[in-house]
């Protein structure tokens, strides 16, 4: 359960300051599939970083599962990120010169998972992200943009987080592969009950969610249920 109330974020760089979020409030229940839409520069990533406990708001409150996240210590936030949140960055952020498998295994190391189980989990996550097995031993800098994106998604899924936050996860994918990834999110949401929040600026992508929040210039301009949800019917990897 996510409850944000009147969140603002001001970026300070030298003398100039820029308010990227100007009082945003909403809540997301467990098991919801929400899309956040908005034009470039509207504050989507900023909001997502706060939701993912990667950054803290300048003002306002953020309760995650009933606990006030804005007052937590750095290490407590690290625990939340590790146990509850799977984050797909807009710029992916894979470890350079490191194999695909190792990139996906990394969160498990910090989660103290048994070494024997790690590889199997990483392979399962890569499979549900739709990456072909022959790339698993490639270094992260030997992959195409779309492949990198799928590795980033697999890394977010590998910990079985209760909440998946994805910043433009289909931005680099062709329509068909994009559908596969969206199908994966829908399946995680419907069969495993995971909360999914995804950012996009494409209405067709947003239509895969149950609810669409539209943000512009740091304020929410609309927040409505999506009555014509598009379902990815069938996918086989």
């Amino acid at each position, binding site marked *: 359960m996510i409850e944000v109330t009147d969140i603002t974020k001001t970026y300070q760089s030298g003398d100039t300051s820029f308010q990227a979020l100007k009082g945003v409030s909403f809540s997301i229940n467990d098991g919801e599939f929400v899309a956040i839409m908005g034009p470039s520069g509207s504050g989507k990533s900023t909001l997502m*970083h706060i939701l*993912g406990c*990667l*950054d*803290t708001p300048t003002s306002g409150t953020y309760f995650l599962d009933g606990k006030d996240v804005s007052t937590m210590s*750095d*290490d407590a936030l*690290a*625990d939340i*990120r*590790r*146990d509850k949140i799977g*984050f797909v*960055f807009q710029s992916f*952020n*894979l*470890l*350079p*010169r*490191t194999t695909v498998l*190792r990139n996906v295994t*990394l*969160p498990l*190391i*910090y*989660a*103290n998972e048994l*070494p024997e189980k790690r590889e199997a989990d990483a392979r399962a996550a890569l499979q549900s992200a739709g990456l072909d097995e022959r790339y698993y031993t490639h270094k992260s800098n030997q992959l195409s943009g779309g492949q990198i994106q799928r590795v980033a998604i697999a*890394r977010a899924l590998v*910990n079985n987080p209760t909440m998946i936050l994805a910043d433009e996860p289909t931005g680099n994918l062709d329509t068909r592969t994009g559908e596969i990834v969206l199908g994966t999110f829908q399946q995680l949401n419907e069969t495993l009950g995971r909360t999914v929040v995804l950012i996009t600026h494409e209405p067709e992508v947003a239509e895969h969610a149950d609810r669409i929040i539209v943000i512009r210039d740091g304020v929410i301009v609309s927040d409505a249920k999506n009555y014509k949800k598009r379902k990815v019917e069938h996918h086989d990897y």
Partner: protein
Amino acid sequence: MTTNDILHETYSALSANKVRTGLTMLGIIIGISSVIAMVSIGNGAQSSIAASIQSIGSNLVIVTPGAQRSFGGPQQARGSAQTLTVADGQAIQSQVANIGSIAFDVTSREQVVAKGTNTNTSITGTTPSYTTVRNVEVDDGNFFTEEDVASSNKVAVVGPTVVTDLFLDGSEPVGQQIRINNGIYTIIGVTKSKGGSGFSNADDAIYMPYTTAQHYLTGNQYLSEIDVSAATADDTTQVQNDVTTLLLAQHHISDPTKADFSTLNQSDIIATASSVTGTFTILLAAVAGISLLVGGIGIMNMMLTTVTERTREIGLRKAIGAKKSDINTQFLIESIMLTFTGGVIGVILGWVISLVVSKLGIIQTSVSVSSVLLAFGVSAFIGVVFGYYPARRASNLNPIEALRYE
């Protein structure tokens, strides 16, 4: 994170950036090995010079004619003045305490001919005690005796270099005759090589009774040197002082600064030479220290230029659940591994260099533990500080700030 995980992370981080790892280690290796090698060479030079001074004689006090060094006025070349006499030597022998032995020397340079070959070498007319005073050993035949001295016999003991210069066919020198300054001398012995070189090469010399040298070569009654060997090393200063006082009285000189002879103490030579070689060692150590510094700056440079990339990596690791302590441990272990691997290679390399220098016979080096510790300590310190400190700072940023770090 288990220990195993940390080691694995360290290993993959170091092997993922082979060039960076290699260059950083190279800085450490060069720094450490040059300090170790240079200091060992310096130490080796110091002990080899001390050893060669030791080989001149034992606890020597050398008396030479001519004025003490003084400012102004013409300076007579040492040894060329005619002020030392046999009587002086005998007075020293009978009146100065704690004398081991004493030798009277007459030196000159002459052309020496044997079987048509000739060489120019130094002639030392002396007493049989010369062998003990100057550590000269006879390899073949005998040194001359007191009787030879008493009757001014024309006998000669030659150094090995003279033998090779004169007897090209390798024939046995003992018993053969050589011509020096129109006199015929019989070789009765060959000295053992001392391996010396330079201005006083004991191997390129001919020894004969001093009386013979005075009579046939210099034609006067003066001595060119008196070598006094003190009974023990501790006695050299006392012997030197007593010899000076005695000779001033013998020569009726009341002002010591006007003395017509000078004395030189072997311990003073050793002290002077070791201060020279000490300076030399310091010079080498300074050169090595500069390479250590350059190596250290190289390490800093490598570590700091990768900070941007590593800061992003730290942000990423934190974003997927790493705690500050996970990051700090990983980076600390990483810098320790890097500097210690480089350090161990550097120590081995420095050691090998000094061994090679010894084996090639250039100089007998000796590796000092303190130089190993110093070199290792400095580069390990630099490596750990500059590898760990930026990482520690980055681990305090929140993940987004770290990921955006420029």
